[in-house]
């Protein structure tokens, strides 16, 4: 009896062990990714993971896919993804997961942090004889890490100054020219600040700093990361603080969650006369304020000869993609001259290829806009994107508020950000 009971207990333990092992294996299998010939594909359709914040984003990706199909009818791409605020946070997990996509997208050249999960595209470009010289060299440099290209650009997003033509007209202020200076900008902001409307809406994070520095010809980062000790970095942040505290032409920045755009909200609702944003925002602003009411100008500079800061977006291929050649052909189709010209019929975002700019000028923009874009993309300041860009943006967004509230100086804020990065 005793031995039968012991035997039963032993079998029970074995059974329990099998159950526990099975459960652990199930959990581990669920957590681990893998690669096979079908990874990242749904039948013949390539899966793409990208940012989708609403109907406008959905339409944008549908249009790029339609453009790709226009160039290559065999191409098939489907897409899913979260809003931009969550995109870069979720991207590594998705790339590592068992259902990783073949294609991913990057904005403002932010490939650096994700290269471990990305396929270098140089060999595929050579194999498929893709002429890379048709893209802005500054943009290709942004999308490369250690000399390897990880993303092919589809739109060129130079940061420009958007202005509300009606507010300028009502204030009796002349519209900006492509040779306006920082002093001209401050004067225009002062003149348009009245009746609850501010002249300018300050963006959060590093983008306004890098854009102002680039306008004067200084890169905000180098291979060692952000140039916090560069006096021009400090001057750029000081100018933003002064616009609020000294000139009283902008609302001070407040504590805010990352991935939010209070400056865009202010401009698109007519609460500010100017905003400094990437051209990807053009269509949204035209829809909000009226197509003829939105003007764009170069970023003001001290000398009046402004240079551009490029933040182009591109497609990349994941390392786990089961058919990288097919994925590259899809990218080639979506970024082809035919494909991007097709997209200009419905999207205002500026094509990454310089040879498609004519179609954009006719379909989505204007000759006036094209002049601004040519100046901003043609003479752009090459600027590498630091691998800790997201961390820099988060820390700047947190700490720069203290400069606007007067609790810290700009120099102290930059020290605090540096200290945060050092942890």
């Amino acid at each position, binding site marked *: 009896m005793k031995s039968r009971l012991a035997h039963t207990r032993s079998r029970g333990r074995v059974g329990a062990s099998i159950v526990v092992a099975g459960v652990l294996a199930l959990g581990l299998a669920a957590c681990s990714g893998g690669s096979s010939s079908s990874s990242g594909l749904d039948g013949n359709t390539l899966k793409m993971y990208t940012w989708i914040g609403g109907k406008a984003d959905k339409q944008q990706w549908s249009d790029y896919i339609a453009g790709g199909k226009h160039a290559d009818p065999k191409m098939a791409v489907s897409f899913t993804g979260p809003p931009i605020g969550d995109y870069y946070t979720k991207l*590594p*997990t998705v790339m590592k997961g068992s259902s990783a996509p073949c294609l991913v997208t990057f904005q403002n050249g932010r490939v650096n942090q*994700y290269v*471990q*999960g990305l396929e270098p595209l140089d060999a595929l470009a050579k194999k498929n004889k893709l002429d890379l010289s048709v893209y802005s060299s500054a943009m290709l440099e942004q999308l490369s890490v250690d000399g390897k290209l990880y993303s092919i650009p589809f739109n060129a997003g130079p940061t420009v100054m958007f202005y509300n033509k009606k507010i300028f007209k009502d204030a009796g202020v002349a519209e900006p020219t492509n040779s306006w200076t920082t002093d001209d900008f401050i004067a225009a902001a002062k003149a348009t600040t009245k009746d609850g409307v501010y002249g300018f809406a300050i963006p959060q994070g590093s983008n306004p700093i890098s854009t102002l520095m680039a306008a004067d010809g200084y890169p905000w980062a180098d291979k060692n990361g952000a140039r916090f000790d560069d006096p021009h970095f400090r001057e750029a942040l000081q100018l933003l603080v002064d616009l609020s505290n000294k000139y009283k032409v902008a609302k001070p920045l407040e*504590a805010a969650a990352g991935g939010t755009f209070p400056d865009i909200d202010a401009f698109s609702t007519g609460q500010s006369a100017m905003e400094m944003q990437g051209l990807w925002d053009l269509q949204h602003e035209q829809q909000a304020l009226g197509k003829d009411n939105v003007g764009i100008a170069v970023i003001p500079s001290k000398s009046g000869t402004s240079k551009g800061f490029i933040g182009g977006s591109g497609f990349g291929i994941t390392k786990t993609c089961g058919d990288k050649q097919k994925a590259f052909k899809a990218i080639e189709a979506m970024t082809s001259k035919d494909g991007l010209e097709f997209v200009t019929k419905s999207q205002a975002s500026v094509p990454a290829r310089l040879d498609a700019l004519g179609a954009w000028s006719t379909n989505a923009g204007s000759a006036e806009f094209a002049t601004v874009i040519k100046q901003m993309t043609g003479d752009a300041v090459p600027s590498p994107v630091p691998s800790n860009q997201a961390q820099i943006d988060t820390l700047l967004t947190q700490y720069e508020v203290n400069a606007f509230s007067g609790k810290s100086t700009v120099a102290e804020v930059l020290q*605090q950000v540096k200290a945060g990065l050092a942890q």
Partner: protein
Amino acid sequence: MTFVRLDSAEDKISDRAVAPQGPSKGRARRRPLGGPRWVGWAFVLPGLIGLAVFIVIPQLASLILGFSNSTLLGGTQFTGTENFLRLLRDPQFLNSVVVTAIFVLIYVPANIAISMAMALWLKTRLAGRNWLRVIFLIPALSPMVANAAVFRLLFQQDGVVNQALTGIGLRPIPWLSDGNWALAIVIGVSVWQSFGYNMIVLGAGIDSISPDVIAASRIDGAGRIRRFFSITMPLVSPALFFTTVLTVIGAWQTFAQAYVITGGGPGNSTMTIMLYLYQTAFTNNQLGYASAIATVLFVIIAIFTLFQLWGQRKWVHYD
């Protein structure tokens, strides 16, 4: 709602209701309903799988990752106790512990006091009190992110609150520009969001008090205050203990409010441990270090919970 002391519940169930009498008592204890042993496992297995996949495996993985240098897309190198030693000299982490401790110290008493006050108020013969209970519960039922986004709009520089203050001749308050005010907003929103749930639990505890006991105390001459401290509080103490334990655990884990309203700023004045953990893992891409933070947070919560369990013997009355 009736609260039963867990360690005595088993005895009560087995002695009075389930266990049959006679020599087969021991065997019947293991299988009170009869039938083969696998039936029991079949009932337990779905829950066990869920527990293993969603709780045990991630916690074990997190514990192990805490001893490594790991990134989301890169490899993992074992680094021993380096991450835990780094935590001790990381001013950002130490600040997040202080911020969260301040949050716990203010949020928990405020939440429990308001919940109790509201539960007592709704115990009175108030017209439409059931509707009021539902209304006060709505914030707890609605998503925290949505609530926090609305509060952000209310408290921004030119938001409704500052416009109202200006309207009555007061100066606007830098709610989201000043660290102390920002933390106060995060605490206030958290209390507003969660007191409804505790109010329902405490209200159920108050409702379960026998009217005879209250009547007897009145006959004995006990006034309102005496009745509250000598009758209501002891009898509602199991519910109070339950809500306090859960509220303390939730307070140490607070995340969404600071994430949506302030992003941890201005500076790091609203940087809670969970928000710092999130930023470390998903913004800074330091999975190993973030796992070490998670382990330390787990230990902090475990210590507080065990302390509360130990302390309950002195103030919680189950009879």
